[in-house]
């Protein structure tokens, strides 16, 4: 007979391929001779397997356990995955910084590419190429890097074409308790300002937290040394607190008790929605400074790899219509998350069901996606992609057959030789037949800045992720289908009418000449 083990593995592999989301927490218990394995997946699904036979069950359980807690990155699925599709466009080379810079340099010459970090020696978590003010040479950058936490000196994050204002990001300055200053840092930061203009520093920590950071050698920009800048503190929580929040939220969502008060109080106690509101508010503030106040902005927290990126990337979604297209959003993720050094491997290791405390685990990226979803929910016609796209990205960030989200920064990725050894997620996503699933039928390009509401009444729980496995989606799917049908039919009609019109016009211009001349002469008379 076929051993259960291989049965299950077959089942597992089919799962991996199909859903590309995966497991990895299991617990087993026994009732008589039937063993039960409960698999808690990273995409928040919970699967229960009832397996007859004690031994088989234990075997399977230990196999899953082993497979789900691999020590080495190179043993992970992306290194074994063989794509079943033809690669049209290689995702690894789809978003090169040089290409992005070309676009920028067509509007302004105030910026340059710096290869100072090409061997990752100045800043291990930065990419080899960064964009800095043209007036600042590499020598200065080197000095600034020493003054900033982890060497993350201020670099360009976004250039607002409308008014030439910019958003920079960095890590905290290392002022320490004695208020150390760095003239080069001041020079670099000021180089981004237009003459006579002021700028904002958005510190993603509370003033209190920022002050405490000084004891550990960190700190914030002091008014005396940065007189042209005004500092605003917005409190965005740090990773371990966010992870606890996610765990609580998911627990609340899985609670099947019928008590409304309990649900609401658990939802409240998880604080998830509070964090969504905080992050969105900070991003809106940054966008407001740039677009409405016409001021440049520098964003940083402590390391500049988490809350900083949430703020800079969300602000771009608000400001820049390109970021609301599929390609543009992918490019944003590459620039502001992957290249900017968000430590995906540390943050997205175990997801909500981890039983061991993971020190660096945190749903920073999921929070970002949730915020994007909130904006999408408020501007359903302004995004080229749909909710499904965001959910897919969430899944792949935690478990994927593609190498895109492996490693913590570009440095690690290049050491792992991901480009050579694994597939890029974008190679798969950007195939026309896959793209279809991610497209929002309501999309109509909208070149305006979109200001979301951050009132609690306007923010909702992201059901597509958190309630996905707890409620049937049939009726909502049908609504989606119906919507698509209505819009597609209209497009079809419009095309039809237009082509018929064209046909009429063509014949018209041929044999209607004389008549038109008549009309003209009549008008002249």
């Amino acid at each position, binding site marked *: 007979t076929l051993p259960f083990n291989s049965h299950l593995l077959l089942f597992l592999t089919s799962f991996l391929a199909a859903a590309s989301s995966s497991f990895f927490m299991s617990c087993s218990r026994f009732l008589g001779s039937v063993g039960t394995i409960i698999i808690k997946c990273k995409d928040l699904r919970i699967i229960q397997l009832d397996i007859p036979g004690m031994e088989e069950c234990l075997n399977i359980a230990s196999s899953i356990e082993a497979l789900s807690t691999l020590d080495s990155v190179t043993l992970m699925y992306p290194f074994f995955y063989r794509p079943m599709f033809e690669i049209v466009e290689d995702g690894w080379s789809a978003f090169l910084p040089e290409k992005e810079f070309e676009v920028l340099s067509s509007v302004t010459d105030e910026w340059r590419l710096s290869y100072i970090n090409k061997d990752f020696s100045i800043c291990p978590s930065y990419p080899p190429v960064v964009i800095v003010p043209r007036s600042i040479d590499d020598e200065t950058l080197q000095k600034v890097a020493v003054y900033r936490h982890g060497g993350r000196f201020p670099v360009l994050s976004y250039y607002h074409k*409308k*008014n030439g204002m910019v958003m920079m990001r960095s890590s905290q300055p290392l002022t320490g308790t004695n208020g150390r200053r760095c003239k080069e840092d001041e020079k670099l930061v000021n180089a981004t300002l237009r003459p006579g203009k*002021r700028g*904002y520093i958005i510190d993603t920590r509370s003033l209190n937290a920022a002050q405490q950071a000084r004891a550990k050698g960190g700190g914030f920009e002091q008014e005396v040394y940065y007189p042209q800048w*005004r500092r*605003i503190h917005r409190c965005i929580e740090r990773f371990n607190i966010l992870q606890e929040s996610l765990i609580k939220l998911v627990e609340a969502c899985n609670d*099947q008790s*019928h008590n*409304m008060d309990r*649900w*609401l*109080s658990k939802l*409240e106690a998880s604080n998830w929605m509070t964090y969504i509101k905080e992050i969105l508010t900070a991003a*809106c*503030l940054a966008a*407001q400074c740039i*677009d409405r*106040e*016409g001021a440049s902005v520098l964003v940083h927290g402590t390391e500049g790899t988490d809350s900083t990126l949430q703020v800079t990337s969300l602000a771009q979604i608000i400001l820049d219509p390109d970021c609301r297209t599929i390609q543009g959003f992918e490019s944003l993720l590459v620039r502001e998350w992957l290249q900017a050094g968000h430590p995906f491997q540390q943050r997205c290791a175990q997801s909500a069901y981890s039983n061991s405390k993971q020190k660096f685990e945190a749903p920073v990226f999921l929070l970002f996606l949730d915020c994007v979803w909130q904006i999408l929910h408020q*501007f*359903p*016609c302004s995004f080229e992609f749909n909710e499904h796209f965001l959910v897919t990205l969430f899944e792949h960030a935690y478990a994927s057959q593609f190498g895109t989200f492996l490693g913590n920064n570009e440095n690690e990725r290049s050491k792992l030789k991901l480009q050579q050894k694994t597939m890029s997620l974008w190679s798969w996503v950007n195939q026309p037949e896959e793209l279809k699933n991610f497209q929002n039928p309501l999309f*109509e390009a*909208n*070149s*305006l800045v*979109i200001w*979301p*509401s*951050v*009132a*609690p*009444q*306007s*923010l909702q729980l992201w059901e597509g992720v958190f*309630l996905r496995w*707890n*409620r*049937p989606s049939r*009726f909502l799917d*049908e*609504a989606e289908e*119906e*919507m698509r049908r*209505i819009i597609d039919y*209209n497009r079809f*009609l*419009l095309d*039809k*009418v*237009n082509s018929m*019109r064209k046909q*009429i*016009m063509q014949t*018209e*211009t041929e044999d*209607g000449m004389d*008549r*038109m*001349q008549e009309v003209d002469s009549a008008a002249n008379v």
Partner: protein
Amino acid sequence: MWALQSKGKNSWIEERKQLGRALSHKQCHVQYNHHLEFSRGCQRLTNHRPRQLARLQRSVLPAYPSERVEYTQLAGNPTANAAIADVSTTPFSCFYHGKLPALLPAQKISSVENVKLLDRYTNRRAASGTLYLTATHLIYVDASAEVRKETWILHHHIATVEKLPLTTAGCPLLIHCKNFHVAHFVIGQERDCHEVYTSLLKLSQPVKPEELYAFSYNPKMSKDNREIGWKLIDLKVDYQRMGIPNDYWEITDLNKDYEVCSTYPPEIVVPRAASKATVIGSSRFRSRGRIPVLSYLYKENNAAICRCSQPLSGFSARCLEDEQMLQAIREANPGSPFMYVVDTRPKLNAMANRAAGKGYENEDNYDNIRFKFIGIENIHVMRNSLQKLLEVCETKSPSMSDFLTGLENSGWLRHIKAVMDASVFLAKAVKDEKASVLVHCSDGWDRTAQVCSLASLLLDPFYRTFKGFMVLIEKEWIAMGHKFSHRCGHLDGDPKEVSPVFTQFIECVWQLMQQFPCTFEFNEHFLLEIHDHVYSCQFGNFLGTCHKEREDLKIFEKTHSLWPFLLQKKQELRNPLYRGFTAYKELQPNTLPFSFQFWCGMYNRFDKGMHPKQCVLDHLLSCMNQKIKLEDNASELENKLPFLDGPLPSEACYLSKVGCAASKTSMLNTPQDYQGEPPAVLSNGISVGDANVTSDVEQKNKENLANRRDLHRNDSVDVLNSEAKDGKPQHH
């Protein structure tokens, strides 16, 4: 006014007409479109060419004779009051349907200038303008905005008027409306404020039913049409649809003189097996004579939903006829050996009622009943719950945690869930267990109405259509004596009788729409519209407390029915995703707590800033309209193609208009107060002049961008147009 007088009566009326039209357009603008553009109101507005629009504005502006009208003492002035009562003679008195409410003749328009309207949530500069009091509405015209903005409040919609302590800016007047609109005015003079206050108190709480808007509302409809309107909904037809009369059920006129029950309609449906004596006997044993009658018959298996009030059982009383009555109901469903008796009250409340000689059915006294409590709280709990909910909604920039805690503490969603749970229980009993259900609460006109109507809605797709939903409300709410007048506080009366029972029903329907987006023929606006009119007293349907009272008020002779007016607006009230009558049968909603959402569109309906800035519903509705036009176009073109008879300029511009309508998604929304304080740079950096310059540039940029976007979006249409143009230049 003087100018008007000199023109003579006709021109006065003519001008009023114009004003009416103009204002009604503006009204749309105000209602849907405070400063956001992505709404129907705006689409309608922008359908006018800019020049027309300007003309509109001009024609409206001088019509408010701001310099000619002195503020007349409203409360004390007898002429003013007389004018207020004298609405029936004024020709235009409807704003919901595109006409103007009676503006009092100019010297009687009461107005206050230099009134500020505060924004509820942000610290943005308050608007400043003029407050007008008409016979039916309070109108605020914002003079400071570039685009003329008006806020209209129907007097009947006003729930409370509060005068707040005097501030340096003036005397604040806070108005809460029954449709959850909150307006915070600041009036310069204390004396003015007080007079507006006392006038509004009088106007918003009429003492006599004859003072209600419905009795003066005159939409210029012929008598015949008005009567036809009242006949639109015929409950007998609905019973026929259920197959009644049949072997088990009959429609009886036992109550034709309201002898059985004064709050029931003259015709009721009872089991054929129940004799007159049984019915009369049972009525003596039921609170207020509200005997068990049929609410809905599920034709497939003969299981019925019946409703009544609590029995007068006390601790031990019995009534043979009542027991026979229940037996007759049970036996009318031969497929089931038992029936449910559902008491929708919490057990404790029901037990407390026994001390007053009321109570609930003793399972031992009735054959084969299964008795069950479903704890839905009473009207007082519900009223307080809504009060708390509204406080939460009104909180100025609450934190997420404040909001969620407030939502929880209000208990509102818990109550909604309780109503839904009860309805699901009923629907399941009928469909899955094939058992009949008898439902009651205390008097059987609040919770019972909610639960019975929702269960019918779950079971029968007909009730999810326009017509069906109207029938449902007429049947379960209006005919069966839900005390709208008391619950909605139409007249000056006991505030303890007011309760949002009907609002809860409407919300439950909305919650169902969220779970089943393709199953309802109508959309959210339809629900809101009905909810508005339950309070507006503009139509007769919801006046009074029961059928008898409505007859006494002569509402069928003197007022209009709401339903024909709603049907006229079917195009904008329909659900584009509706998959038709046969697509779904019974609904089985998920009632886990997370399936219920806070309904921002209802309780924060007038805070447009909180709503999604682009509305999928509106977008799809415009698609549906576009579809019809395109289809016409296509067939017309198909006919023309073989003949080719010359250019079709009218059609060309028609087509481009269609394209524009579909692309009207511009949204110049403004950033909110993200920091909780006014922008900082402005205060310590850029001067105001600078800011203006940048904003001008911004505006231009935006326009350019917008144009470009339109081009991009309509390229298919525009290509055509430009082709058409390209074709011609050679001849010029």
